[in-house]
């Protein structure tokens, strides 16, 4: 039995959201003026939430660690945003988007949340168009669509290869309008350090001014976290350098449950790691797999020669090329979902067929598409991606195949939330990638942007009223309360502790080691022994961190090393939870592959009898085992089946 109240409304799936909206509280305009809301993080989810809440009349204070909300990593999303508009008359519908998302997530997401997401998706497109987002258009002036992996309809809206940028700038412009009107107070270059809980309710945060180093208190009637995912726990990922999990992590340590941390998306088409000095990985859009063919040499000796630079890829004739995705998955071929494509690349490289110096790359070849369609067509479709690839690698992908390898890209797990997006701390909400709610064990392409904006524009502005409606008699939160004082003191103490270790090792060294442990044991393929090793090694690394960390500079000045130290300290705890969750989930589903749970052909095998639940973890102490709470997943509408892409 579940001991978590997900507050999923009763009734038929298509009526749940409408019924719920009809029943939840609405706060009067006069009372909204008296209520303060803090929004942490101003990417798609945070900026859209902050703007929408301010438009409704709440007093909003927003925070981001960058110098502008426009820098949030939502900006880097390339491909597009899904919406069930059915503009193409190809029989798309809310139900079809709902179904594709549940199936794509390998039946590990909540039906009710996903249906709501599909329901509000058309409104997102309307909103963005009204804001002046320059979506791609047909000659007649209507909106264009394209297809994305794993679906049979054309429902993805896009703005060249910069959809995330344009949607973020739309939300940013809405936010700017509210800042100008004085309804949002924006704090850039501020990092949230703790959430303050008073009488069991979230009542504010402690933040550090990253320019002056000052630690400050902020009070509010509710706190919204829209702080992104935890992919950077692996050190190398497609996330921005500053992306971190600290806001979610301090919330976890104050009582917010953390759900499904083992669900991590590994994207198959990233530029491979180059040497040991690399700081981050660059994604090449999934759309490339529409026209590129993935291969490695059929003969091991050819792979060895490639690695030594003795031959070039084009020296290998077609007969000696192994198009392994087409071979293994004849019906989906190069367009299998991300998790499947990633594992297949790893399998070939582990077997000794990797093609770069490190043996950790496969080819993505456009030779055949150029022969079929001509260079101009390919340039029109992918020109900017080809240019980016050449700038980074100095290889011309029109002439020589791209080298790609899987990399950490997105985290489906995150802070546990109920149907209202409230965490297990009353008054604390979590939106976008930061929560766990909509993508199950694997996210479909072009769905991250959809979820971020759905949460911020069309879900939270309704559901937060249900909580704040009960807070209208609560006066402005007094930040002199002992809870604020204690939280600030703890934050300052923590910063001083990190700063005063004065060891010999800079923080990046620990971060890289943590990343290697996780990539080796909690990456694309996981097993019991490896996961136990990872837990032990992370615990040891954490001890070393607190005895040997070297943070230079000053506490009260710009100090990126101090910022990183705080984030890595949290990653060193989160990494252990990730491994624990992966150890607990002895089944394979979506991005989580346990070697013990595979079919005879080596494909992922789900175990619905034992694992059709959300694993929500409760913090009990840094060196204590967390407590597992299970939220059973019930599928009333969709029948569970084993995914197959053969």
């Amino acid at each position, binding site marked *: 039995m579940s001991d978590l109240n997900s507050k999923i409304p009763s009734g038929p799936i298509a009526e749940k959201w409408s019924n719920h909206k009809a029943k939840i509280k609405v706060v009067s305009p006069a009372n909204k003026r008296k209520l303060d809301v803090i929004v942490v993080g101003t990417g798609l989810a945070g900026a859209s939430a902050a703007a*929408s809440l301010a438009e409704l009349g709440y007093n909003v204070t927003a925070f981001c660690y960058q110098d502008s909300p426009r820098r949030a990593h939502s900006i880097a999303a390339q491909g597009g945003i899904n919406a069930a508009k059915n503009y193409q008359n190809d029989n798309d519908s809310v139900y079809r988007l709902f179904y594709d998302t549940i199936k794509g997530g390998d039946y590990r997401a909540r039906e009710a949340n996903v249906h709501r997401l599909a329901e509000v998706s058309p409104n997102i497109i309307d909103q963005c168009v009204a*804001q002046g987002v320059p979506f791609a258009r047909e*000659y007649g002036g209507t909106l264009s669509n394209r297809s994305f992996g794993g679906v049979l309809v054309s429902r993805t809206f896009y703005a060249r290869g910069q959809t995330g940028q344009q949607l973020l700038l739309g939300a940013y412009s809405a936010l700017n309008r509210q800042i100008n009107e004085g309804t949002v107070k924006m704090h850039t270059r501020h990092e949230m350090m703790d959430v303050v809980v008073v009488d069991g309710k979230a009542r504010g945060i402690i933040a550090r001014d990253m320019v002056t180093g000052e630690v400050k208190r902020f009070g509010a009637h509710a706190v919204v976290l829209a702080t992104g995912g935890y992919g950077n726990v692996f050190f190398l990922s497609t996330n921005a350098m500053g992306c971190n999990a600290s806001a979610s992590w301090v919330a976890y340590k104050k009582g917010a449950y953390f759900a499904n941390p083992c669900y991590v998306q590994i994207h198959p088409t990233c530029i491979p790691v180059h040497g040991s000095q690399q700081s981050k990985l660059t994604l090449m859009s999934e759309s490339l797999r529409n026209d590129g063919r993935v291969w490695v040499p059929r003969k091991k000796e050819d792979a060895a020669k490639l690695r030594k630079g003795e031959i070039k890829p084009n020296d290998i004739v077609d007969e000696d090329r192994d198009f392994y995705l087409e071979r293994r998955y004849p019906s989906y071929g190069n367009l299998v979902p991300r998790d499947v494509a990633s594992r297949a690349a790893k399998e070939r490289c582990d077997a000794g067929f990797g093609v770069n110096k490190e043996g950790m790359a496969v080819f993505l070849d456009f030779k055949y598409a150029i022969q079929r369609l001509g260079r101009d067509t390919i340039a029109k479709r992918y020109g900017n991606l080809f240019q980016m690839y050449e700038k980074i690698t100095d290889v011309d992908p029109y002439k020589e195949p791209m080298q790609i390898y899987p990399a950490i890209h997105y985290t489906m797990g995150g802070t546990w939330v109920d149907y209202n997006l409230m965490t297990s701390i009353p008054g604390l909400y979590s939106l976008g990638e930061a929560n766990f709610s909509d993508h199950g064990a694997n996210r479909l392409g072009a769905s991250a942007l959809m979820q971020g904006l759905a949460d911020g524009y069309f879900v939270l502005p309704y559901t937060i009223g249900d909580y704040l409606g009960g807070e209208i008699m609560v006066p402005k939160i007094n930040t002199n309360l002992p809870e604020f004082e204690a939280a600030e003191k703890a934050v300052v103490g923590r910063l001083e502790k990190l700063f005063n270790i004065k060891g010999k090792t800079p923080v990046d060294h620990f971060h890289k080691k943590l990343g290697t442990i996780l990539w080796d044991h909690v990456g694309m393929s996981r097993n019991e022994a490896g996961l136990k090793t990872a837990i032990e090694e992370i615990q040891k690394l954490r001890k070393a961190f607190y005895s040997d960390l070297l943070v230079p500079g000053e506490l009260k000045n710009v100090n990126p090393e101090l910022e990183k130290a705080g984030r890595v300290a949290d990653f060193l705890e989160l990494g252990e939870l990730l491994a624990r969750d992966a150890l607990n989930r002895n089944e394979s589903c979506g991005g989580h592959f346990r070697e013990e749970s595979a079919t005879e052909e080596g494909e992922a095998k789900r175990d619905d009898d034992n694992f059709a639940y959300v694993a929500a973890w409760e913090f009990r102490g840094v060196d204590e085992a967390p407590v597992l709470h299970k939220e059973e997943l019930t599928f009333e509408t969709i029948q569970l089946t084993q995914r197959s892409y053969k």
Partner: protein
Amino acid sequence: MADIILNKIYVKVWRQNSPKAKGGFETYQVENVSQGTSFLEMIDILNDKLILEGKDPIAFDHDCREGICGMCSMYINGHAHGPDTEVTTCQLHMRKFHEGQTIVVEPWRAAAFPVIKDVMVDRTAFEKIQQAGGYVSVNTGGVPDGNVILIGQDDAEEAMDAAACIGCGACVATCKNSSAMLFVAAKVSQFAKLPQGKIEAKKRAKAMVAKMDELGFGGCTNTGGCELACPKSISIAHIARLNREYLSAKLAD
């Protein structure tokens, strides 16, 4: 992927501990840098060395490291974002430099972008310009269906050309007058090409230009340096459109 190693290079970089502190150049030696390394990874290597030597690492802005967030902002050997074209600092690679070279790294220099520390500057002025009018005044909800507003493909594409601005400030850093015209023009031009933006066009052009002037950016003398430095190749044709928008707004007063 070329794997040539630069055995020794020199980085002559601006060091300034705080906004009011006196700044100056320091030169550091960096060894064993692969030409496949990005410029910022080379700075990472240098910073690691500085930390291990007990020195303060160089503070610099960066985030996405894939050329889209607009955070990175180094003036390298006399060029905003360095010697390559159509790239941000984070996309610049060490293959653009040679053995033994001295690389000069400065912050964006503009009165409206004060130095915070080392090569990190304060671009809050850009935020204030956007807040003054860089939006269409619509609330969430209550908007028409997306296909009710028809927009010709050419107009949509031109709006997108302008909207590609990443707000990095290379245009300001390059301009001898520290003008923000290209930055302002990109936003005004995006909305001028779209029906959604027409209603507030006059108000927007006036408000954004007034804010730009108030914040200490210089005037535009049409030398076009901004376009060349822009990592997204935003055309100065957008400045011409801004001028038209501004003039027609003023004439209507």
